[in-house]
């Protein structure tokens, strides 16, 4: 079965690109160039062809190239080859529509929802901003985990959004009580807590399930020579699911939130629930929590998790996600870089790598020149910026 691959990308007025048409006829595409030439913008455009807000999590207004009167309407379109054949996905601001709206097209037709895209395309990414994942708050690690779950279970995004929505409404009602001294309608609060319990338990169960599967994949040595990582989910709701059926956990949450209304009103926030979950990483060979590891080791842990995740998606959905690895190789020492390239070669996934120094990708060139490690697979290299026509974008 052919891996999911992006064969052509077209951009119009996207970030730093007034216009771009590029073909990607390879399984590993390297985008090398100096700072500011648009390497990450290119990866971001690819990430926007799937569901979500892309690898920078940016607002829609930030995507348009800046003209004299502000951001211009933008468009990004990709042609993919996947297990079910060739298809096109396009996204951008609607023609003549508001600049803060984004629309999707699937094979030229309006996509009904982002879930339609999720069925065809998945992308996982690592960016330099994610290096702070171990230092930043639990929210970033939770969002990282949610994105991993979402790629495997498109429904998860809806559960998390529904939970967040109900919780925001509960907080608003409780804040009204604090501000105006008016007690909120208890039946309304109970209705919101019911929604939080149903969606929150579903979200926690999905996170718990994925962490278990990722750990099983990592223990099975799915990342090859890459150092193994182990994940741990710190979430009271997920822990409760180990002891009791989901319906009982839902009842417990409802009762808990009902009892904690006074405390939460005083705090101005809901202080317990699956939105407080955190994700822990352990460097298995050293038995060290990630926060105590070196920057390079932390990067290696993230890469291991992302590779294991890609392999899980491939097992579950029949196609591996696109791997968008921004400035990843530069942080790794030579043996780890070799391990990364080896793991990428073993995965049936298309990978996009960026870097400022083309020399660090030299091992890839070597593979291409000699016989490919896997029959029928070739590696290409792209250098940006490129003044040559798109078809001569590659060398290898």
């Amino acid at each position, binding site marked *: 079965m052919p891996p999911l691959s992006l064969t052509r990308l077209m951009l119009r007025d996207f970030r730093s690109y007034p216009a771009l048409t590029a073909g990607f006829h390879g399984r590993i595409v390297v985008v090398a160039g100096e700072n500011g030439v648009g390497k990450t913008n290119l990866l971001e455009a690819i990430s926007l062809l799937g569901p979500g807000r892309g690898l920078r999590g940016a607002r829609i207004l930030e995507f348009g190239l800046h003209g004299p009167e502000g951001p211009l309407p933008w468009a990004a379109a990709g042609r993919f080859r996947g297990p079910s054949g060739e298809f096109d996905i396009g996204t951008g601001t609607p023609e003549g529509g508001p600049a803060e709206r984004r629309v999707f097209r699937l094979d030229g037709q309006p996509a009904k929802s982002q*879930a339609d895209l999720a069925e065809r395309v998945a992308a996982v990414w690592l960016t330099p901003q994610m290096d702070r994942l171990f230092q930043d708050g639990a929210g970033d690690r939770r969002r990282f985990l949610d994105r991993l779950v979402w790629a495997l279970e*498109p429904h998860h995004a809806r559960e998390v959004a529904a939970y967040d*929505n109900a919780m925001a409404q509960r907080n608003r009602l409780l804040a009204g009580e604090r501000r105006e001294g008016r007690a909120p309608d208890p*039946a*309304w609060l109970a*209705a919101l807590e019911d*929604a939080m319990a149903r969606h929150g338990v579903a979200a926690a169960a999905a996170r718990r399930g994925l962490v278990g599967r990722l750990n099983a994949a990592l223990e099975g040595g799915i990342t090859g020579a890459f150092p193994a990582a182990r994940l741990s989910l710190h979430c009271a709701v997920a822990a409760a699911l180990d002891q009791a059926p989901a319906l009982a956990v839902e009842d417990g949450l409802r009762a808990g939130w009902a009892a904690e209304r006074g405390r939460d009103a005083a705090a101005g926030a809901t202080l317990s629930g699956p939105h407080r979950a955190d994700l822990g990483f352990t460097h298995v060979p050293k038995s060290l929590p990630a926060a105590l590891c070196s920057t390079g080791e932390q990067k290696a842990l993230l890469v291991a998790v992302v590779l294991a995740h890609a392999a899980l998606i491939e097992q579950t959905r029949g196609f591996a996600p696109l791997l968008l690895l921004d400035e990843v190789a530069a942080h790794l020492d030579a043996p780890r870089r070799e391990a990364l390239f080896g793991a990428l070669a073993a995965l049936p996934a298309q990978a996009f790598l960026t870097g400022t120094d083309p020399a660090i990708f030299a091992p890839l060139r070597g593979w291409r020149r000699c016989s490919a490690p896997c029959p029928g697979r070739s590696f290409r290299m792209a250098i940006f910026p490129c003044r040559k026509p798109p078809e001569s974008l590659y060398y290898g």
Partner: protein
Amino acid sequence: MIEHDPVEHLIGLLAKLPGLGRRSARRAVLRMLMQPEQAMLPLAAALRDAAAAVRRCRLCGNLDARDPCGICRDPNRDHGVICVVEGVAELWALERAHAHRGLYHVLGGTLSALGGIGPEDLAVQPLLARIAEGGVEEVILALPATVDGATTAHYLTDRLKPAGVPVTRLAQGVPMGGALDVLDEGTLAAALKARRAV
């Protein structure tokens, strides 16, 4: 001046309607302008008549030329069953299905703390008053399967409990003629949860 151009003015008014963008409004106006006598003047008269005659039903909140509306007046309908809907569009959808032979109650929205819509903004009290009058044997909640819809349904169930009237809600699951493998996971899970003996 463009802004005083009657054609542009008409296109602008039509484009504000749901389901019509400027492009479709322009096409509709162009078609009407081809035959103003046959297409425009009767439309203008129909708009005027509807605006003058149609009112909210004081019992259920439906829009009708009569008050109470035709549904509430109909002696052949089951006055013991009230179906609660978010708006008139949902009432019309259920009427098109010919599946409900009882009465309706239009809530006028769903609860939304973020949207500033509370119970007092919805027709909750009139619903409780209708039930207090007696004769209601079942209340069907036909609200959207969204967070706000589910919250409103839960809220109404709680408020209706003291009245002792059985409250039901619409099933969620496999659509008629739908194949299982194309259903989203949420709908499939809801359908499995709501399975029943055959």
